[in-house]
Every structure is written in structure tokens, then in C-alpha cells.
């Protein structure tokens, strides 16, 4: 097994909660109600917690003085392999919650499988994370229904967000070379096999929410190969600010 493939594989998992957590972190104190504010912060906390577990493990694999922070903060944009979905902006709460929902359903399915990984570290992380993500999924699904089937205004906003973010869902089921290598080893999850169940779950909840399922078959991709939308550079310039400005210090 190539050490590099395992390392890349872990980053491909962990960059998603990292960047999604970062997006949620922007909202802290600015949510539509105290309760949603607390819930979104809670999700961010879970996501960063998971990120740390993955990166601590990745740092051990990498060696060379790598740390969870060097991995989180000191890569260039092209080296982040999160999916495009998670970097999309908090345009309004409809976008925030739809982004969350479209990721959560995937995330849960993914962790279910990762629990069965031959890699005991990954399996253990997945085992712990899935409990958290089960809550995330419930939270975001409930809000999808509440807002989809709330007022005319909320329905319009939700449909707009769903239509806009839909194009980023297909990428969740793409694989990189490292992914394929890890799948072959019984370590990685074959996400291609999750696609049908993902869309059937998503569609069920959108139907419950009386939202239309987008018909577009055009999708975006690139994140898994480090090709991001123009939003990513701004996320990183904030996120990396301290580590870049004051290198090699302990915080």
C-alpha cells in the first residue's frame, strides 16, 4: 500500500468538514435565531473535531514534523481536496441549510461504510463521527421540510438554493486515484455505490418538503482534484492568515 495514497485519502475526507466548518463559523452570532445559531455552531464544532482526528492521523502517516495544523493551514489552494459543495457561500439561510443537508446525507452514508474500513483508525473515527452526523442530518432535514413547506417566501428561497447547489452533488460520488487505491485495499469507501441511495434519500425529503427535484443533468466537479471555485481563495486567505503571517509559532 502506498503511504501517499492513504495520506491523500484522509485529506480527501477531512477537507470537507474543515471547509464546511469554516463556512459555518462565519455565521456564528449572525443566525436567524439563537437556537439555530447554537445548532450551527454545534455542527461546526463536530466537524472541526472530526477534522482534527483525521489530520492527527494524517500527520502521523506523513511524518516530517507534520501536525494537524500544518496540514490544515499550510497547504496551497490546489492542495485542498474538499468538494465544491462545502465551499459555497452562506448566501442566505436557505443556502446554508441546503448545503448542509446535501452534505449531511452523503456524510452519513459515507461514514456508515467507513466504519467498516480495514484501517482501524479510520473506522474508529467514523464510529464516533457517525453519531454526530446522524444529528446533523436530522437537523438539516427538519429545516428543509420546515422551510420548503413553510411560507411562499421560504419555499421560493429554498427552491432557489436547491436548484443552485444541485450541480455540486454529483462530485460527491467521484473518485480520485488515491480513492481507488484505498478502495482496492478495503480501506476506502466506494462512494460510487452510494449514489443511488443518496439521491433516493434526498429526493424523499425534498418531496416531503414539497420542493421540486431539479432536473438538470449538468454538474460541476474539480474540488477533489484541487480545482476550486473562486470562493476558495477567500476562505483560505482568512483561514490561513495567522499561520502565514506568524509562521512557526505555538498558539
Amino acid at each position, binding site marked *: 500500500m502506498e503511504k501517499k495514497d492513504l495520506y491523500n485519502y484522509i485529506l480527501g475526507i477531512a477537507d470537507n468538514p474543515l471547509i464546511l466548518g469554516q463556512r459555518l*463559523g462565519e455565521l*456564528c452570532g449572525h*443566525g436567524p435565531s*439563537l437556537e439555530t*445559531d447554537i445548532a450551527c*455552531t454545534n455542527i461546526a464544532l463536530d466537524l472541526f473535531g472530526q477534522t482534527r482526528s483525521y489530520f492527527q492521523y494524517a500527520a502521523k502517516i506523513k511524518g516530517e514534523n507534520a501536525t494537524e495544523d500544518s496540514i490544515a493551514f499550510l497547504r496551497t489552494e490546489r492542495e485542498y481536496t474538499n468538494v465544491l459543495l462545502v465551499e459555497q457561500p452562506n448566501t442566505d439561510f436557505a443556502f446554508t441549510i441546503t448545503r448542509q443537508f446535501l452534505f449531511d446525507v452523503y456524510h452519513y452514508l459515507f461514514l456508515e461504510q467507513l466504519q467498516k474500513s480495514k484501517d482501524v483508525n479510520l473506522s474508529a473515527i467514523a464510529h464516533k463521527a457517525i453519531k454526530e452526523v446522524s444529528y446533523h442530518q436530522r437537523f438539516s432535514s427538519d429545516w428543509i421540510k420546515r422551510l420548503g413547506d413553510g*411560507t411562499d417566501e421560504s419555499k421560493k428561497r429554498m427552491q432557489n438554493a436547491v436548484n443552485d447547489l444541485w450541480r455540486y452533488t454529483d462530485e460527491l460520488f467521484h473518485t480520485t486515484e488515491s480513492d481507488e487505491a484505498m478502495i482496492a485495499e478495503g480501506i476506502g469507501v466506494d462512494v460510487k455505490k452510494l449514489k443511488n441511495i443518496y439521491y433516493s434519500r434526498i429526493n424523499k425529503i425534498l418531496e416531503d418538503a414539497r420542493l421540486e427535484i431539479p432536473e438538470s443533468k449538468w454538474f460541476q466537479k474539480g474540488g477533489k482534484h484541487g480545482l476550486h471555485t473562486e470562493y476558495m481563495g477567500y476562505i483560505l486567505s482568512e483561514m490561513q492568515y*495567522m*499561520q502565514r503571517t506568524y509562521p512557526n509559532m505555538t*498558539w
Partner: protein
Amino acid sequence: MSEDQIKNLEAQFEARIARDEKIEPKDWMPEKYRQTHIRQISQHAHSEIVGMLPEGNWITRAPSLRRKVALLAKVQDEAGHGLYLYSACETLGVSREELYDQLHTGKAKYSSIFNYPTITWADIGAIGWLVDGAAIINQVPLCNTSFGPYARAMIRVCKEESFHQRQGYEIMMTLANGTPEQKEMAQDALNRWWWPSLMMFGPTDAESVHTAQSMKWKLKRKTNDELRQQFVDQTVPQAELIGLTIPDDDLKWNDKRKSYDFGPIDWDEFWQVVKGHGPMNKERMNARVSAWENGEWVRDAAVAYADKQKEYKSKQAV
């Protein structure tokens, strides 16, 4: 009720408080007691909510994952404090919407300290250490205040605040023990937050209103100046321990008083900020009002959905 009856109720009420019994929402209470508590508890709740903003400003830029998680957790705790303080306040017969409205229209106050900007990462340490430190000194006595829901909320708040305070101090210690740039950052933050922290205890006793009444109701046990002195005496050695200098040339140990003497506070600055002209008053209010206004459609939708669900269930029940 006759005037005599009311006087009687009031006497019983005061007696209960004197005996350290808790007043509960369903109990009779004088209107002034109710109003004072609404004012103070909501002001406290507002402070928690507005207080999320200066710290929230550094979540996306926290220098390590560990610190990012801790900061998020801290800001979340503040939201939680806000939540149970608003709940305590609601038991007095005022709705959360009314309370928000008072905040957004400037009728209600919140702690002025949050009208200062967080300029560097060290400010996050300084807020935890100094601002939460000062808050605890103000709040610990409230764990025994007479109004039950407030006292119980404060027990939980104080426990968490004291954790935040230690965490903030640890950030400062790490910086003070770090590179020269880090130490400078820490000292700079202390320089900027020291005096506003002293102002958190309010005007000098000579100018303070409400004190006598608040003492009786156990909303206050010590005067502003006594609490301020306690804060100085507690904090100065902490600064020394990590090699930071309190920005006060007049500061010195008074062996007679067994306490620190300290320099005069710039009350002009205090009143400027209280009156709404601090560095960030406008930005803080804009942030809160925007969050509220932008969230209106979400709250409306949640209500509409709940109504629909109720209707649906009642139809099923038929």
C-alpha cells in the same frame, strides 16, 4: 387590593428575601422588583448575545484547530447563556421578541465592553482573561440573588465563565511565553483591554444609582468600587506571573490597605461608549439587527410550518 394589603405583601416579600428564600415567578412580587429584574436580566442576556460578535470575529482566523474549536465552543456557551437568561426573563412576563426589540431600538443596554474591536488574536485571550474575569466577579454574588430563575441561571453561567477565564489566561500565557512578536501582541491586548475592563464595574459608587435597592434584593452585595478593587487585586499578580505589564503608571501595592492603588479611570471614554459612540457600537447593533431582519423569513416559515403540522394532526384526529 387595599394599600394596607399591599404593604403587608411587601413586608412578607422583603422578609422572605431577608431569610434568603428564593422568589419564584409564580410568587407575588412588587412591580418594581419585576421591572428591575427584567431590566437587569435582559441586559445581561443582551450582553451575552452581543458579546458573541467580537469573539466571533476571530473564528475563521483562529491560529490553530485546537484554538478554533475552543473559541467556537466558547461563543456557543455565550449563546447558551443568552438563551437561559432570556428564559429566566420570560418568566417575568415579557416575551423574547419584546426584549430583542428593546435591544435593537437602543432602549435596552448591554455591556459596553463589547463595543471595543478585536484587533488581534491576543484580544481573544484578553477578553477571556480580563472581561470574563471581571464578569465573574460581578456575577458570582448573583448565584445567591433572590430571584430563583436568575440565581439558578447564574450558577451555570459562572461555572462556564470561570472555564473561559482560565482558557483566556492560558492563551495569554502561551503568547507571553512565545516569540517576541507574540509577547508584544499579548502586551498590546492587555494595554487596550485593561481600562475598559475596569470600567465594566460601572461608575464610582458616588455616581452609581440603584445600589441601595439592589443590595436589599441581593442583586448586589458589594459596591462597584469594591468589586473593581477585587478585580485589580486578583488580576495584577496574574499579569506579573506571565511577565505582562499592567498599563497603569500609578499602579502600586498599598501595604496598609493590603490592596493595589491604581490610577484614575477615563470616565469621559466610559460615557462616550455608554452613550453609543464607542468604536463599535454602531457595528454591533447593525450586526444584531441584520441577523434579526435577515432571519425573519426563517422564523416566519418555522411558525407557518408548525401551524400546518398542527392543523394536519388535528384533521387526522377527526
